[in-house]
């Protein structure tokens, strides 16, 4: 379940492929096999890999040609490529390095040689990934500071937050991606007695297993190759505060054991450490996965699930709380106009209707991105349908209310907005006189939006 480094083995000889497969599996890597250069290109186009072990001498498309194509515009893999060669072709391997291969290994390898090369690549990629995640984290923190929504579904969540926040209970927040699970965790922490202590969030799914282990529990100097200093983990950093474990459904069985131990005994050991470290941490976890299904598939421990799921907060997807869309739109417009140093813009009712009719598979995060994009590309004083990344045609006909009165109200409101509340023009378009229009505006309590 965990994100493990992915290694693609490309070799035309089955015994070589199988031997590498077994060896790499023992290290817990996700391994793919390709028996020709052509296969490798197809596989690398379809899926991303961290390392590609590529044999130089293959019938048909040889390793060098495969390398050129993998690094070429068509595939453009960002995987590091390790060439494999027999003694006779070392010169070609050197040439391969000039073409962008990371290094080469002479077959048969010494076990420590291949292990070192792969660990070097994986560690480098982990560092790059960690850097990206840290940057994202910094950006996210300034973006979110409150949960927005006044729908019934959100009212229930606010009630739950105020009930569970003062306790020390473990909470499992479930919901689709982009529903704002971390915001709920922050709200729980912010309303708890631990609010002046750290809130530490870890995105478990984004980190490879080995990195997650050292992130959570830290390590002692010399615990593994490259551990030059003792490092505190997130559990220690979150002492007396709250630790938010996002994407908990993605952690390996091994990390599940470690987590279970901390939850049961409130203590853990750093990687390579002898000393049991006691911590007082409140755990909040979140997932977009069906953990009960994962339990039935032996991918998630039942005992850990019950430890985490003391209190459960299911966050509804945006499509089930569409009443909140106008409020969210307003909040995002305000936020991004301020950020972009732009005059506050409005949204046309037809554009808002379109947003209301959309299903939002990416939830609040998607809506936020749509508004940000509209503000970047839009030039007018209001967001119009053309500024949105989807059209009415794509979504199908506008949803019409069943009530005739409501339909009349919406129609009048739309024409008023299109004419910028020009009463004479609106009356003319509606083919009614001005007094009738005034009466209907009063009857339906139609108001001009500021």
């Amino acid at each position, binding site marked *: 379940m965990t994100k493990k480094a992915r290694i693609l083995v490309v070799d035309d*000889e089955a*015994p*070589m492929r*199988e*031997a*590498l497969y*077994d*060896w790499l*599996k*023992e*290290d*817990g890597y996700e391994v793919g096999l390709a028996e020709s250069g052509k296969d490798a290109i197809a596989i690398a186009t379809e899926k991303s890999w961290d390392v590609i072990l590529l044999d130089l001498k293959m019938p048909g498309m040889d390793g060098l040609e495969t390398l050129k194509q993998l690094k070429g515009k068509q595939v453009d893999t960002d995987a590091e490529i390790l060439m*494999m060669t027999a003694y006779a072709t070392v010169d070609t391997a050197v040439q391969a390095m000039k073409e962008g291969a990371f290094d080469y290994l002479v*077959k*048969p*390898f*010494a*076990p*420590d040689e*291949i*292990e070192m090369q792969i660990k070097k690549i994986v560690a480098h990629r982990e560092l790059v990934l960690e850097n990206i995640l840290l940057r994202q984290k910094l950006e996210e923190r300034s973006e979110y500071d409150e949960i927005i929504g006044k729908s019934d579904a959100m009212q229930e969540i606010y009630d739950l937050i105020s009930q569970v926040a003062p306790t020390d209970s473990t909470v499992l927040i479930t919901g689709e991606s982009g529903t704002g699970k971390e915001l709920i965790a922050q709200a729980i922490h912010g309303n708890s007695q631990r609010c002046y202590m750290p809130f530490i969030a870890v995105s478990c799914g984004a980190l490879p297993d*080995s990195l997650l*282990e*050292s992130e959570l529990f830290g390590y002692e100097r*010399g*615990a*593994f190759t490259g551990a030059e200093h003792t490092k505190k983990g997130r559990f220690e950093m979150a002492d007396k505060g709250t630790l938010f474990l996002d994407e908990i459904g993605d952690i390996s*069985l*091994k990390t599940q*054991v*470690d987590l*279970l*131990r901390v939850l049961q005994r409130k203590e853990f*050991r750093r*990687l*390579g450490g002898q000393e049991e470290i006691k911590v007082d941490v409140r755990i909040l976890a979140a997932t977009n996965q069906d953990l009960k299904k994962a339990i039935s598939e*032996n991918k998630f*421990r039942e005992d850990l699930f019950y430890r985490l799921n003391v209190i459960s907060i299911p966050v509804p997807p945006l499509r089930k709380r569409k009443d909140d869309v106008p409020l969210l739109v307003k909040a995002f417009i305000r936020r991004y106009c301020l950020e972009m140093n732009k005059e506050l813009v409005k949204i046309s009712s037809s554009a808002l209707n379109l947003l209301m009719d959309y299903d939002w598979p990416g939830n609040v995060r998607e809506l936020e991105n749509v508004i940000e994009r509209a503000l970047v590309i839009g030039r007018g004083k209001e967001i119009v349908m053309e500024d949105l990344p989807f059209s009415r045609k794509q979504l199908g006909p506008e949803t019409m209310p069943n009530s005739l009165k409501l339909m009349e109200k919406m129609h009048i409101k739309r024409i008023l907005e299109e004419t910028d509340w020009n009463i004479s023009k609106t009356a003319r378009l509606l083919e009614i006189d001005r007094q009738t229009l005034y009466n209907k505006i009063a009857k339906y309590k139609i108001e001009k939006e500021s």
Partner: protein
Amino acid sequence: MSSCVTICPIGSVDEGILEHIAKCISIRCGLNCRISMRMENPRYAYNDTRYQYNSKLILKHLLQKSPPDTLRLVGVTSVDLYVPILQFVFGLAQIEGQCSIISLHRLWPEYYDQPSDRDLLLARVEKTALHELGHTFGMTHCRDRRCVMYSSVRIEDTDLKQPDFCPTCFELFQWYLNKSPQQSPY
């Protein structure tokens, strides 16, 4: 229900070493062990270019000969093992499978021009056997250098680690053990 691990000598293997492996697995893993009849020297797996034995072929053979009432089978041989892509292996296991094999060849201190030391040999044998047995339950390598599931690519790695699982790997081993389908005795 059987929870018996079979220790199977392949070719000529010192009886004391086999008994030591059986004792260690029984103590460390809480599993009953028995030593089976000796298998013939695995000539079918010999590679006369490398002067070594293909461990994968031996594993396949072991799988065919594995007694139906055994939970796991650990083959023990004195010959030098390899897999085609690597220069040598200390042992090989089927991940989440039935069988594993270990070689004593590169565990002897004399192989590294060290003075003869039976205790050191037994310590290496114990660690290698536990490591490969762990793989058969689905365990992958551990990052803790002292854990028996730490990857041994050099004999120094084997010497550095302890003959036991780290607390996490032990718990995980127990979990895998409980999930592992037990087989009925005859």
